[in-house]
């Protein structure tokens, strides 16, 4: 479904993403994890056309979409959310979601469909509220709902669980599962490991712009290189030592 071939992006002297290659199969939930500043969000930017790679190719559903403008990538069915939520301020929740829904619909149909999607993500009671009046959990749901309303084939979720309390996380996790069940492939960036473990079929670990591990959640979390990336050099050895 999605393939990165040797993709790199530098910001000045910093290699934010350094020849990353990965393949995500259709119908799966993938997770991209890694410490802060590893380059995960930059990866999403590269996939979704917001950032043009310095090198490498992005292939989506067999099409080379490298260098396509963001809106065209989105129309092709690859829709991202933003880590820092980006509501249409001044517009109601319903209007926000309807923008996502109107790609293939008349305005009226988009509004009706937006209401359905809102109900599905648990925003059914907040339709008339201005987007900026929602609490953080609500804004994350809105971010998700808007992307969902665009009916993506591949949904990129950038830390939709960050800032949510455990009860809220417990509500959103089954929602993501149901999105996949509805036929949408999902790639998520997530720091909440419990959610990664329960949702992801496959995990990629990024550190300092490079992929350092890939595999099932269980395999990856046991990988010494991953432990060191998170906890510092020598951590894997220390953890392995019997105390």
């Amino acid at each position: 479904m999605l393939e990165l071939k040797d993709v790199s992006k530098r910001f000045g002297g910093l290699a934010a993403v350094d020849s990353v290659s990965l393949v995500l199969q259709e119908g799966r939930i993938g997770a991209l994890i890694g410490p802060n500043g590893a380059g995960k969000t930059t990866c999403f930017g590269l996939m979704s056309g917001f950032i043009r790679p310095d090198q490498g190719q992005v292939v989506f559903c067999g099409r080379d979409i490298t260098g396509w403008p963001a809106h065209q990538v989105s129309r092709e069915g690859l829709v991202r959310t933003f880590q820092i939520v980006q509501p249409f301020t001044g517009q109601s929740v319903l209007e926000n979601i309807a923008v996502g829904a109107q790609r293939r619909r008349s305005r009226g149909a988009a509004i009706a469909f937006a209401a359905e999607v809102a109900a599905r993500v648990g925003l059914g009671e907040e339709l008339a509220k201005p987007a900026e009046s929602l609490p953080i959990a609500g804004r994350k749901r809105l971010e998700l709902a808007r992307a969902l309303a665009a009916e993506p084939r591949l949904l990129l979720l950038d830390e939709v669980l960050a800032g949510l309390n455990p009860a809220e996380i417990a509500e959103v996790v089954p929602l993501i599962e149901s999105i996949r069940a509805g036929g949408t492939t999902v790639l998520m960036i997530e720091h909440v490991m419990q959610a990664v473990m329960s949702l992801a079929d496959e995990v990629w670990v990024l550190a300092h712009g490079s992929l350092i591990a890939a595999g099932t959640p269980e395999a990856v979390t046991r990988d010494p290189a991953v432990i060191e990336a998170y906890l510092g050099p020598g951590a894997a050895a220390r953890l392995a030592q019997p105390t």
Partner: protein
Amino acid sequence: MHTPAPIGRTPAAADAPPAVVHLLGGTRRSIRLLGLIGMALACAPLVVRSEFHLTFMTLALYSTLLGSAWNILGGFGGQYSFGHAVFFGLGAYTGAILQVHAGLPAWTGLLAGSAIGGAAGAALGAISFRYGLRGSYFALVTLAMAEVFRIIANSVPFTGAGVGMMIELRSGPADLQFESRQGYYYFALALALVALAVSSWVRHSRFGAALAAVRDNEDAARALGIDATRIKVAATALSGSLMAAGGVFYLQYFHYIDPMLVFGPAVSVEALLGPIVGGLGTVLGPLIGAFALALVSQVATQALGQAPALSMALYGVILIVMVTFLPRGLGRLRLRRGRHA
């Protein structure tokens, strides 16, 4: 807390949430309201008999047209232009050149002027937005464009250079010149209603929703498949075409134009002031703003005597006061409170 509803269930109109019903009904409410306003204004000459008052209303409607034109790009699109005189002047000169040099009737000038205004809008929008110009920079570039056109009109022979152009006096509806005040009143009303109808369409259509999305968060809009550049270019074209119609009206009404009158900064200011006073990004804002400003300038003239500079200065004061204390405009005072109550 929330149970996810099964997907695929289309809410029937009856049990749809109130917010959905409200949003879906926007177009119909807007058409009804504009219909009522249009009828009331159409009947006004039956009541308003004095030439003075009819002129007042004619010029307020003409100002509504300019304000609505600016509002489509500035209010609904969030791109503030300081040089809308570009389109106005192009419309006016197109009309004048067609009549004076080609001997064509005025209505062709209205059509051609609007078309050229639209094309100029598309071109200006394309070069500006293609290169990511926004905010204050866009304002400055439009201003510079207006200056460039003013200088050109001042320098080339077929615009009459600094002398300006005068059209022949020929009255008749096909020539868009009228013997009676009523004639001009209905001409202005027709143009203003077209502009309001276009605004209403923008407010409630898919295009308008995309435009507002780009205004409120361009990145989010692009992520949802909206071609931000194209939408802004289209809004500029629409705006430019209506503004050019305003230029043609000016020509038909005053029969005389020169570079400073039609490409000068006064026109650009008049276009942006109305919507800011009445309510940016609302359908009726430019109408409310235009009438409020016309009233203020009448009162000012009566209080201060014939001192046009002082009334203009007053406009400046109003602009500062509005931006400082009522950035949402007069028109939104009531609506906003109602919506959040």
